[in-house]
């Protein structure tokens, strides 16, 4: 194993040859609504146990669901953003099973007729390539409550705050072929959800979770038996879990074993998946249309109204950034990852060198923010100030090198770059006479080296440039130093 074969991402070199992964994702995204899908209790996170619970959520006898209009709108909006078919008539079904944090004894979901049908999205891979992933469906459903198992040796504690919170389940087609693609897919979905405003995409708080269906096969063969890894809440875990699960399956298959179709959990401490034994009990969800709810129906004109509220979405925005600002598609794809980024960039680059702005934003600003663990929305450097810095570089007021010092100062003091340049006297020296004075000084102090240079040691030119720059405290215009020094040393 592991000979120097050039494996593509998602391929596993086993004893019997190269295997490929087949991956499908179910993303559960919490809708950013104020109240729950079918009750008026708050959908907010982190409240006291059972305080965000209505009698409907607690499934008291005779309580009935009434659907939240905002949640329906968000599902349609997201469906449109996923280039998907919007179903003007959809049905809510009951998914029946018993669990302590499922008070009704069923989850209201959509089974046969989801609100959104097939669609597709383009995902961006690290190597700059793109690929299309099909969307199978998007449906609305209720979240379950929470069981705490570590409060008591023989008891579980139940909190229903999350019970009934609105979720969208976005199901991909099994079009994904590597953990990296899966990661890119989740990032793209997250980005779309955030653009649309349907979900805050906060994976730490569980607003976005993914179940990954993973199987392996030899290239060209039928799909293998899949396992479902439940409840992954970070892109890193998704990538790790898929890789480890695929390797586990290859190992079993190569030893002549069979894959059991089952639900598995990812253990973040070992980096491996394990079987969820309690769920092995055969499920039969007995879906049927919820008789407490009627078919959800809306008109084309209502969908059109929602379409008109859609923001410019990442794919189109990316194309526009490339055309309008002349930046590379790769830089554009980074900038459109978050709506915040693009908004910041467009403000900063307004009337400036777009390419230079993109470089500074992606390399310097993102680097510095990451180091300080600050989000872009809390950046000490405003888009206007970053733009001003770019302008100072472009018009030759400061050199790129000085600009880095100014940038560092901006991060600390939040001052505008022009103020910093003025206060510290950092304007670039582009005056011939000034620079010639410095050159004369360097030549007079290094007569030996001048001789050597003139005698053919061309490499010494860099040394003279360096000395002049040093003498100017970095402020001399490097282009002019080069030009004047060349003339002088002829």
């Amino acid at each position, binding site marked *: 194993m592991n000979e120097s074969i050039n494996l593509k991402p998602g391929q596993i070199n086993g004893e019997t040859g190269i295997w490929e992964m087949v991956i499908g994702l179910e993303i559960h995204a919490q809708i950013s609504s104020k109240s729950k899908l079918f009750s008026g209790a708050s959908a907010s996170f982190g409240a006291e146990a059972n305080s965000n619970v209505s009698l409907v959520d607690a499934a008291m006898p005779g309580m009935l669901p009434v659907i*939240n209009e905002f949640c*329906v709108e968000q599902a349609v909006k997201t469906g449109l953003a996923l280039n998907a078919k919007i179903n003007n008539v959809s049905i809510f079904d009951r998914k029946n099973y018993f669990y302590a944090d499922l008070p009704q004894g069923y989850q209201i979901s959509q089974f046969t007729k989801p609100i959104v049908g097939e669609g597709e999205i383009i995902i961006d891979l690290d190597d700059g390539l793109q690929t299309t992933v099909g969307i199978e469906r998007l449906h609305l459903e209720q979240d379950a409550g929470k069981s705490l198992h570590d409060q*008591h040796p023989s*008891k579980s504690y*139940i909190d229903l705050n999350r019970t009934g919170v609105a979720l969208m389940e976005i199901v991909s087609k099994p079009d994904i072929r590597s953990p990296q693609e899966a990661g890119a897919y989740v990032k793209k979905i997250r980005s779309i959800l955030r653009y649309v405003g349907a979900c805050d995409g906060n994976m730490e708080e569980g607003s976005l979770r993914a179940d990954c269906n993973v199987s392996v096969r030899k290239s060209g063969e039928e799909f293998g038996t899949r396992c479902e890894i439940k409840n992954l809440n970070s892109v890193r875990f998704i990538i790790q879990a898929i890789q480890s699960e695929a390797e586990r399956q290859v190992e079993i298959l190569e030893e002549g074993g069979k894959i059991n179709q089952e639900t598995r959990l990812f253990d973040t401490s070992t980096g491996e998946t394990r079987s969820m034994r309690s769920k092995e009990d055969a499920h039969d969800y007995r879906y049927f249309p919820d008789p407490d709810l009627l078919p959800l129906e809306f008109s084309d004109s209502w969908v059109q109204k929602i379409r008109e509220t859609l923001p410019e979405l990442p794919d189109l925005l990316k194309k526009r950034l490339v055309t309008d600002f002349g930046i590379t598609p790769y830089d554009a794809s980074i900038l459109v990852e978050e709506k915040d980024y693009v908004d910041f960039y467009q403000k900063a680059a307004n009337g400036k060198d777009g390419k230079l702005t993109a470089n500074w934003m992606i390399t310097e600003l993102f680097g510095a923010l990451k180091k300080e663990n600050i989000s872009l929305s809390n950046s000490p450097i405003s888009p206007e100030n970053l733009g001003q810095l770019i302008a100072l570089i472009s018009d030759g007021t400061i050199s790129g090198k000085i600009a880095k010092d100014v940038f560092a100062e901006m991060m600390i003091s939040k001052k505008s770059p022009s103020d910093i340049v003025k206060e510290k006297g950092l304007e670039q020296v582009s005056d011939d006479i000034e620079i010639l004075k410095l050159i004369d000084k360097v030549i007079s102090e290094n007569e030996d080296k001048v001789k050597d240079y003139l005698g053919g040691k061309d490499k010494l030119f860099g040394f003279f440039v360096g000395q002049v720059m040093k003498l100017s405290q970095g402020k001399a215009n490097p282009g002019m130093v080069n030009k004047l020094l060349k003339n002088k040393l002829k």
Partner: protein
Amino acid sequence: MSNKESIVDIPTVNKIARLSRLNIPEASKQNLTNDLNNILGFVAQLDEVNTSDVKPLASVTGHKLPLRSDKVTDGNIEDLVLKNAPESSSGFFVVPKVIE
């Protein structure tokens, strides 16, 4: 549905009882099996009806699903939510330990 496969036996009753989370005493299983078979046999007369072009009817109301606006109008009633609970502790419902 009138074919023999759909007629229930005791293992089927066990399976259905398990899905329904109903403890059925051994002694009453045979009677229950008979009752279920009688009822299922009775409803099997629907086989006579040709429904090949008929759409299922889930609701008799003619109106559309009403939508409510997204406002927090409920909650903060822990005392009412927990009032009838057989067991609760510090704001939680309490049940026998669940093993995951």
